[in-house]
C-alpha cells in the first residue's frame, strides 16, 4: 500500500514574509457587475471575500512578497505592521491549503 505523502510536484507552501503568492489557475478573482461585489471563483464554489480580503488578493500577483503587502497595507490602516502581517499570513495560508494560491515555480528554492 502506497504511503500517503505529497509528491515532489506539490506546490503548497508555508506562508511567510518572503513568500510570493499568486492565484492558482482554478481560482479567479473578479468583480461581478450583476451583484456589485468581488467574487473568488474556485472549483464548485463561489466565495465572497470581504473588503480587506479583496485588497490582499489583488496584491497576490506573483511579484509582490507577503512582506510587501504588509508594507502597503500598514501605510493605509492604523494597525501595527506585525499585526497586519500575521493577519495576511493567516488568511493566505488557508487559501494555500485549499490549493487556491500557489507560489509560481520559478520562485521556489
Amino acid at each position, binding site marked *: 500500500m502506497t504511503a500517503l505523502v505529497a509528491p515532489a510536484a506539490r506546490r*503548497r507552501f508555508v506562508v511567510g514574509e518572503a513568500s510570493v503568492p499568486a492565484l492558482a489557475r*482554478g481560482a479567479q478573482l473578479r468583480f461581478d457587475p450583476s451583484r456589485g461585489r468581488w*467574487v473568488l471563483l474556485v472549483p464548485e464554489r463561489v466565495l465572497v471575500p470581504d473588503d480587506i480580503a479583496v485588497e490582499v488578493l489583488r496584491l497576490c500577483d506573483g511579484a509582490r512578497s507577503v512582506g510587501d503587502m504588509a508594507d502597503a497595507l500598514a501605510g493605509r490602516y492604523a494597525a501595527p505592521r506585525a499585526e497586519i502581517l500575521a493577519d495576511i499570513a493567516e488568511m493566505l495560508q488557508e487559501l494555500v491549503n485549499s490549493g487556491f494560491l500557489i507560489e509560481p515555480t520559478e520562485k521556489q528554492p
Partner: protein
Amino acid sequence: MSPVPDSATVVAPAGTDGLALLEPEKRSLAATYGIPLSVLLEITHRCPLQCPYCSNPIELLKANRELDTGTWLDLFDQAADLGVLQVHFSGGEPTARKDLVELVKHASAVGLYSNLITSAVLLTRDKLAALADAGLAHIQISFQGSDPAIADRVAGLRNAHSKKLEAAKWAREVGLPLTINAVMHRQTLHLLPAILAMAVELDADRIEIANVQYYGWALKNRAALMPTLAQIEAMTEIVEAARERLAGILAIDFVVPDYHAIRPKKCMGGWGRQFFNITPSGKVLPCHAAESITGLDFDSVRSNHSIAWIWQNSEAMNRYRGTGWMKEPCRSCAFREVDFGGCRCQAFALTGDAANTDPACSFSPHHAEMLGLAVEEAEAGGDRFLYRNFSGGTREADDAAGA
C-alpha cells in the same frame, strides 16, 4: 457525470480567511429569486461508460436531439448577462462532442468560469492542452475505484481505469487544477483508503467522496449499491483521519449519504435559488434529476423564451421555490429555510409526492422506513448491475458480479 455539490452555507459569517460562500440574499417571496450562480451544461447524453449509478434520466436523448454549437454559444452569452458565474460542462460524456473546445473557449471569453466534468476516457494530451488554452479553469475526472478490475466492471468499459490514470497525469502536465470525483457505494467502499492514496499520487488538488444519490439509474440499481451501516461508519472515520493527515495536500469534500442522514441536505441550495441545468435538448431544469418528478412541465431554450425569462417565470422553476409550497412537517419547521425541506426528487421517488418532506429528514414520517429499506437492501447483497445505455439498460451477466 456527477452531482454538483450544493454551496450550502449562508453569506457571512466570514471565517478567518475573510471569505464566505456566496448565496442569494433573503428576499420576499414576491420578489425575484436572485441570480443563479452556476449552470450544469449536459451537452450530450452520449457516453462510452455504462455506470449503474448514472444521474442521467433512464430515457436518454439521442445525438440528433442535441442542441447545436451556435445555440450553446448563444446560451453562454445569455447566462453571462444573467449573472451566472460558473458553468460545468457535463453529460453524458462532454468530450464526446466534437465542438467542446469551441464551447469552452466562448464560455471563457464571456467570463464564465469553466469546469469540465468528465470520465476522461476519450481525452488525449493534445485535447487537454487545447482545452487548457481555450480557458478551461478546472477539470474533474470521475473514478469508479482504484482497482482496475473493479473500476472497469463498474464503468462497464474495459481499460477505462488505466485511461483515466493517464488522462489525469496529462491534466496536471498541462497545468489544469484537478479534482478526483469518486462515487462510492457498497461494492467500492472498501477501496476508499486506496482511492485517497491514488488522488494524492495523481497530484489532485481535491477529491469529492460522493455517495451515490438514488435517482434514475441509481434508483434502479439501489440494491446493488446501497452501503452497509458498518461501511458508512468506517467511511466517516477514514475521511476524518485523511482530512487531518492530508491537510494542505488534498482537499476532501464529503457528505454523509442521504439514507443514513438525520438532517436532509439543502439540495441544490434550494430549488430554483442558485442553480439550473440545461439538458442536451435544451430543457431548463432546477436540478439534473428534476425530470424524474412526473407532472412537471419544463421550459426549453428552443421555445421563444430567453434563459432569464425561464429562470424567473417557468412554472416548474417556481413550483418548489421558497417555502410556500410546503406541507407539514416542513411548513412550521424551524429549519424550513435552512434546508428547504431537502430534495424534491428524493421525496417524490420515495413517497410519491415531491411536496413531502425529504425522507432523509428525521422529522419525515417516512424516515424510519427509508433507513430500514437501506439496511435491508444492503444486507440482501445482490451485486448484479443494470448497466446504463440507450436501450433502457442491460443486466450484468450472472457470473460477472461478485467475482
